[in-house]
């Protein structure tokens, strides 16, 4: 090989490595279409309006069965974001939601109190996280796709969201009551599952993240984008707390499990007394009664 050819080959290899590195790093960057998808949320004043627009665009959606159903098998976990709702929230930066003054103040107070050691998480009593916080929990997940329902499973407190894709509508408004995971209906647009969820219970997106009210609703688009990754575009609407729809992209990675050790087991949150905590009068968290401490020292 001549020196010129070697240099050219070296250049090609260098460009290839740089491209691969860029792609790898890019996976950790905010989605390039975040601005467009955020704007899509702003164009529609309610979650129902966005969902209906997406359904119209998909010509009503399609019922999938047999081989047309996507293969979402495997055990997954959240790929990005730690325990912040928006995976693109920079370390040390505030959440990316545009909050109303009341909910901005509420969040700031909660963060300031936490810095002083006064923090209480509503799931400390073993209540489910509830949706949309459900999207952020860092534990094992399975996604079961069937023609009429898709089950989105988070192992934490055996939490299953059922997404009805059989054409049914939401529960009539007069009969709705707040639910941890709400009422979810959806349709397939090709290999994308589009979901509208309402009838939710108030909660928090995560500790050090904002609160949401029982008027919160979401639209999600789930899609498997590679052999090991499922991405979810999420728009949250919550007029009392959000000035505009909060768009985020969540992602879940299929975990390597060559020995088939990863299994979702029944999660009994109350099985160990050492995990029981109480809220103190000032609002902090304290263990109720650790069984192994005390003045049991002996000589």
């Amino acid at each position, binding site marked *: 090989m001549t020196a010129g050819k070697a240099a050219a080959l070296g250049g090609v290899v260098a460009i290839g490595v740089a491209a691969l590195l860029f792609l790898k790093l890019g996976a950790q960057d905010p989605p390039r279409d975040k601005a467009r998808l955020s704007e899509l949320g702003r164009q529609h004043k309610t979650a129902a309006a966005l969902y209906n627009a997406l359904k119209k665009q998909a010509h009503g959606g399609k019922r999938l069965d047999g081989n047309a159903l996507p293969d979402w098998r495997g055990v997954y*976990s*959240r*790929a990005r974001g*730690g*325990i*912040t709702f928006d995976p693109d*929230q920079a*370390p*040390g930066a505030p959440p990316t939601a545009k909050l109303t003054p009341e909910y901005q103040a509420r969040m700031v107070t909660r*963060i300031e109190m*936490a*810095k002083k*050691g*006064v*923090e*209480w*998480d509503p*799931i*400390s009593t*073993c209540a489910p996280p509830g949706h949309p916080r459900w999207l952020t*929990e*860092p*534990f*094992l997940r399975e996604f079961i796709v069937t023609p009429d329902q898709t089950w989105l499973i988070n*192992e*934490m407190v055996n939490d299953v969201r059922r997404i009805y894709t059989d054409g049914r509508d939401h529960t009539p408004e007069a009969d709705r009551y707040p639910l941890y995971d709400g009422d979810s209906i959806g349709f397939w647009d090709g290999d994308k599952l589009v979901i509208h969820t309402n009838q939710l219970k108030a909660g928090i997106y*995560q*500790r*050090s*993240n904002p609160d949401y009210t029982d008027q919160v609703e979401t639209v999600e688009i789930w899609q498997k984008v590679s052999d090991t990754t499922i991405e979810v575009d999420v728009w949250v609407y919550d007029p009392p707390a959000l000035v505009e729809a909060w768009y985020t992209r969540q992602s879940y*990675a299929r*975990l*390597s499990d060559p020995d088939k*050790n*990863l*299994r*979702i*087991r029944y*999660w*009994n*949150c109350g*099985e*160990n007394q*050492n*995990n029981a*905590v109480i809220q103190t009068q000032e609002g*902090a*968290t*304290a*263990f109720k009664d*650790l069984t*192994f*401490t005390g003045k*049991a*020292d*002996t*000589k």
Partner: protein
Amino acid sequence: MIKATVVAWLGASIVAGTSVPVAAHHSGAMFEEKKTITVEGVVKEFQYTNPHSWLIVTVTSKDGTVTTWGFEAEGPSTLQRAGIRPSDLPVGTKLTITGRPMKDGQHAATWEYAVRADGKRFEPREGFKVK
């Protein structure tokens, strides 16, 4: 034997939310944020439970005083992902374990990492890594 004690902790802030704290179902504010304690002892019990597991360790000081410590980690599936199985730490296992102690002085701490007598290291938070 109680070994040394408090050293600087290099982890992330529990408030910043940049990493998953050890206490996923309750606040971790009852634990020290930047201090750690390291003890040598033997495993008394490994409570492999949800939402948190506890490694109960018996520590004997030079003067013969016996103290029981509890070290809190995540639940079974996260420990599985970190390669920590019940059979790795049976009763009587000698180890050195490091955690962030409780602010109120109770003999409890987060389980940051443990090193068995044969040198094998066990770090529960490794279970959150996606691989």
